[in-house]
């Protein structure tokens, strides 16, 4: 069990650094084992710092920056140990337009090899989907669902550095 944790941790930590660079242009981050001497119980610290800033502790990050740091951690696990299917429930409400755009580009990347389902209220997230499940309440307070295929889902263009503030 321990070998597979060590190998998984190394892969995830490597991917985490990649996703932090993607989500925090100019920033950096890493995953640190709290007690490398006792690998069986060691915990995982998350460090992330946006571009142009010095802060390391995630408690000093802003609301949106915290979402991005957590997404980088989860996406790193998804990439290091892929699954055929991912489900995310309202993970992007705290993101501004530019970060939402970066998030959607990464999601479109995952959807090339896997099935991705996202619960959302954001119109821009709906635009990248090829199927929409509309959930509503019946008169008696129970759930009904209608589904509808969507025409040309847009793949978010590359925001490019020009768009960064």
């Amino acid at each position, binding site marked *: 069990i321990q070998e597979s944790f060590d190998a*998984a941790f190394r892969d995830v930590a490597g991917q985490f650094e990649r996703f932090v660079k993607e989500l925090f242009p100019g920033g950096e981050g890493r995953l640190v084992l709290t007690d490398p001497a006792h690998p069986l119980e060691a915990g995982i610290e998350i460090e992330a710092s946006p571009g142009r800033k010095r802060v390391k502790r995630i408690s000093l990050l802003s609301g949106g920056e*915290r979402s991005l740091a957590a997404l980088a951690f989860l996406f790193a696990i998804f990439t290091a140990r892929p*699954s055929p299917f*991912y489900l995310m*429930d309202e993970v992007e409400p705290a993101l501004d337009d530019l970060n939402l755009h970066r998030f959607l580009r990464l999601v479109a990347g995952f959807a090339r090899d896997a099935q991705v389902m996202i619960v959302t209220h954001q119109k821009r997230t709906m635009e990248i989907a090829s199927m929409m*499940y509309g*959930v509503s309440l019946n008169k008696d307070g129970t759930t009904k669902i209608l589904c509808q295929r969507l025409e040309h889902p847009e793949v978010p263009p590359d925001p490019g550095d020009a768009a960064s503030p």
Partner: protein
Amino acid sequence: MFLRQIQIRGFKSFADKTVLEFIPGVSVIVGPNGSGKSNLVDAISWALGEQGARALRGGQMADVIFAGTPSRPALGMAEVKLVIDNEAGLIPVPMSEIEVSRSIFRSGDSEYRINGKLVRLLDVQELLSESGIGRALHTVVGQGQLEEVLLSRPEDRRKYIEEAA
């Protein structure tokens, strides 16, 4: 390999039998507050073997059974069936699709089935771990979970990687 279909009956706000077809690529789940979007997410996690009642926002496991509304009586059981596409043979069984189902009665006992045959939870977990779908922790990000990942203690974050290893 992907989730092809779900059938839900008596699970949370899904009083009537609901059948949804799924496709590869990106899908979105949308609708008003309280209509049942996160209940759909919980139905999928539960069928994949989720064991924590708290992770399903209830007190006990039997809280997932439809509790009734002012105009509809409560039900006595809940059942969720997932049909998983296996055209690519990722799951080492000679079938192009596999049905995994879970049901629960007021008494609290859960029953698991694979292609209609009664099995143990362990059998379901072994079947799924081959495919990478694994348990929900690694592929399902519940509502509010991003903040939970950041607020949790370093030892608890380890579980995310152990799950996926």
